[in-house]
C-alpha cells in the first residue's frame, strides 16, 4: 500500500482553488477571535470556579488523554466513537499528529484553512516609536534601524501592538496554521485538523476542532500526549477525562502528571490500562491509593496489535469489543454524573 492510502478521502478539497471557491460561496468561516477565544461551550471553559450544575446537562464531552504517548488514546477514542455510532461525534484534537482518520476513513464534506491574526506594519505611518516592541511579550515585533520587523511565528495574536500603536499603523492579517476538516463515517460525525509542518502553535487549531462539538451528541475528544498547553486546550471544560496508560514505570510516571493536570482542571477522570499484562503492578496500586476508577484493561494481544497496525477497528474486527466499548461509555457516564 502506498503512503497516499493514509490520507482521508476528501483531502483533495484542500486545494487552493477549491478553498477560494468555498470562500466565494461564503462557506468558509474564519475564526474572528484567535487562539483560545473560540470554544464550543465557552461559558464552561472560561471560569474555573463556575458552578458544577452545568455538568448534569444532557450530553457530554469525553476527552481521551494520557501523559505518555503511544498508550492507546486513538484506539480508545475511535472504537468508542464507532461503537456509539450516530449518538457520537469524534473530534481529533491531536493536530500535530492526527491519526483518527486512518481508522475512521471519514467522508470529508467540509475543509477550511485555519488562520491566526498577526501584525502587519504600514511603514508609511510608522514613526518608529517602539511602543509595539515594548508591549509585545513574545518578541514578535521589533524596531530595528528604520523599520519595524514582525516575526509571525512568535506572535500569540493578543492584539497588543495594534491597540498600543499611536499612529494606527498596525493592521492584522491572517497567518495560515493548518487545515480543518469535518465530515462523517456513516452516521458518526467527525472533525480533525492538521498543523502545517514547521508551524509552532497547535492551540488555535485545537480550538477550531473543539468548536465543531455538537451539544446534542456524545462528543469524544482525542487529545495529544503530554500535559502542557495543547493538552489543556483539548481537555479543559470537558465532562470526563479517560486517561489511557500502560503498566510500566514510564506509564505510571506520566499518568501521575496527567492526573495532576486533570485535578487542577477539576474534571472527573478514570483510567484505562492498555497492554495490562506487560509490566508491573505500579499503576493498579496507584489507582487504588488515589481512588481513581479503572474503567477497562486491555491485555497485550498480537491480534489487537495487528488490527491497530493495519488501521482497523477492534469493534469491527473482533465482535465482542463492540459491547465492551458500549459498556465503557455507560461506566463513564456513571462516573461523570456522580456528585
Amino acid at each position: 500500500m502506498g503512503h497516499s492510502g493514509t490520507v482521508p478521502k476528501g483531502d483533495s478539497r484542500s486545494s487552493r482553488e477549491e478553498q477560494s471557491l468555498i470562500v466565494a460561496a461564503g462557506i468558509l468561516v474564519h475564526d474572528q477571535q484567535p487562539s483560545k477565544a473560540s470554544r464550543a461551550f465557552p461559558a464552561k471553559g472560561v471560569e474555573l470556579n463556575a458552578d458544577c450544575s452545568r455538568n448534569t446537562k444532557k450530553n457530554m464531552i469525553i476527552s481521551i488523554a494520557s501523559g505518555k504517548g503511544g498508550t492507546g488514546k486513538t484506539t480508545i477514542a475511535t472504537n468508542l466513537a464507532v461503537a456509539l455510532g450516530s449518538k457520537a461525534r469524534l473530534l481529533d484534537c491531536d493536530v500535530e499528529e492526527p491519526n483518527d482518520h486512518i481508522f475512521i476513513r471519514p467522508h470529508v464534506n467540509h475543509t477550511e484553512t485555519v488562520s491566526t491574526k498577526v501584525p502587519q506594519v504600514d511603514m508609511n505611518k510608522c514613526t518608529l516609536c517602539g511602543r509595539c516592541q515594548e508591549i509585545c511579550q513574545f518578541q514578535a515585533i521589533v524596531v530595528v534601524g528604520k523599520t519595524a520587523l514582525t516575526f509571525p511565528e512568535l506572535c500569540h495574536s493578543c492584539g497588543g501592538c495594534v491597540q498600543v500603536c499611536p499612529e494606527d499603523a498596525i493592521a492584522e492579517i491572517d497567518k495560515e496554521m493548518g487545515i480543518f476538516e469535518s465530515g462523517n463515517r456513516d452516521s458518526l460525525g467527525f472533525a480533525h485538523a492538521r498543523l502545517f509542518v514547521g508551524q509552532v502553535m497547535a492551540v488555535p487549531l485545537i480550538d477550531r476542532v473543539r468548536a465543531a462539538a455538537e451539544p446534542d451528541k456524545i462528543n469524544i475528544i482525542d487529545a495529544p500526549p503530554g500535559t502542557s498547553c495543547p493538552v489543556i486546550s483539548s481537555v479543559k471544560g470537558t465532562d470526563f477525562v479517560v486517561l489511557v496508560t500502560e503498566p510500566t514505570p514510564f506509564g505510571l510516571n506520566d499518568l501521575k502528571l496527567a492526573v495532576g493536570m486533570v485535578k487542577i482542571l477539576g474534571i472527573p477522570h478514570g483510567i484505562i490500562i492498555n497492554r495490562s499484562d506487560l509490566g508491573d503492578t505500579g499503576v493498579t496500586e496507584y489507582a487504588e491509593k488515589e481512588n481513581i476508577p479503572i474503567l477497562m484493561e486491555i491485555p497485550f494481544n498480537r491480534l489487537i496489535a495487528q488490527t491497530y497496525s493495519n488501521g482497523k477497528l477492534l469493534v469491527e474486527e473482533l465482535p465482542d469489543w463492540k459491547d465492551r466499548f458500549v459498556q465503557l461509555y455507560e461506566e463513564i457516564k456513571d462516573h461523570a454524573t456522580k456528585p
Partner: protein
Amino acid sequence: MQRNHDIKELIVISGKGGTGKTSLLGAFASLATDKALCDADVDAADLYLILEPEIRKRQDFQEGHRAVIDQDRCTECGLCRDLCRFHAISPDFKVDPIECEGCGVCVHFCPVEAIDFPIKTCGELFISETRCGPMVHARLGIAEDNSGKLVTLTRKEARELAKNRGLGLILTDGPPGLACPVIAAIAGAAAVLIVTEPTLSGHHDMDRVVELANHFEIPASICVNKYDLNPDMTGVIEQYAKERGLPILGTIPFDPIFTKAMVQNQTIVEYDRRSQGAEVVIEIWEKLVAGFCLQKG
C-alpha cells in the same frame, strides 16, 4: 563559541508517542562514551527513571508573566475584559491562570494600574550525575506553558555541560509531536534518529517528522521498532525510506525484554546484552556512530 562546533548532538524523535524513544536512548547511553545526556521531553520526562540520576543542581525555570488583578485597586471598568482575547478575565475580575496567555495587554491598558504582572515559574531544571554520564533533564510544571523554551534551555545547559567537561557528544531524548517542543528540540542538531513502528499511524506520523527534519535541513535516519508485529507494514516503511534516500538503520523485534528492563530501572543493554532486541540496538548504535562520526577515535 567556536568549540561548540566540536560537540555533536543526536536527537531521537518519533512524531507518534510511545514508539520506544526513551528505551532506545537509554541503550545508547549505555553504549556511548564521552557524552552528556539530555532529556528534552519536558512534558513527560522518563529517562531519569532508567538512569536514576543523583541531582547536583536544580534551578527554577522562569519564563513569561501572568496577570493578577488587585481587587482593592480595581474599579471594575471592564476594559481588561474587552481587550483580553483569551477570555481569561471573569465577570468578577479574576484572572484564570490557565487561560492567561501572559500577553500583558490588560496590564498596559488598565487605567488605574490595578493589574500586577509577576514572572511565572513554569518548571524546574536538573543537572545530575548518572552511571552513564552527566545528564540534564527538566520538569515542566503541571498545566504550564512555555515547553518549547524549556526544551531550548535544557539543550543549552546540556551543551554547556558537555563543553565544560570536554565531552564530544550529546544524546538527546526528544518529545513526541510536531510543533513547538519538537522544533525546539531538533533545531541545530547534527542528526535525528526517527523511531517508528509498523502501524499506519506510526507511518503517517513519521512522514510528518521526516518533512519537519527536511524543513530544518537536519539529516534523518530511521529505525523500526516492533517490526515483526506487522512485517508487511515494515516493508512499506522500508520502501518509503528507500524512495526518499533515508537510511533505515535497523528493525527491532518486539521483545518483552524492553518492558522487563524498564521495570528493573535498567537499559536494555544492561539488562541483557545478548538478547535479540539489544543486539539490534547495538548494531543501530554502531551505524549511527559510523554514519555521523559521533565518537572520537
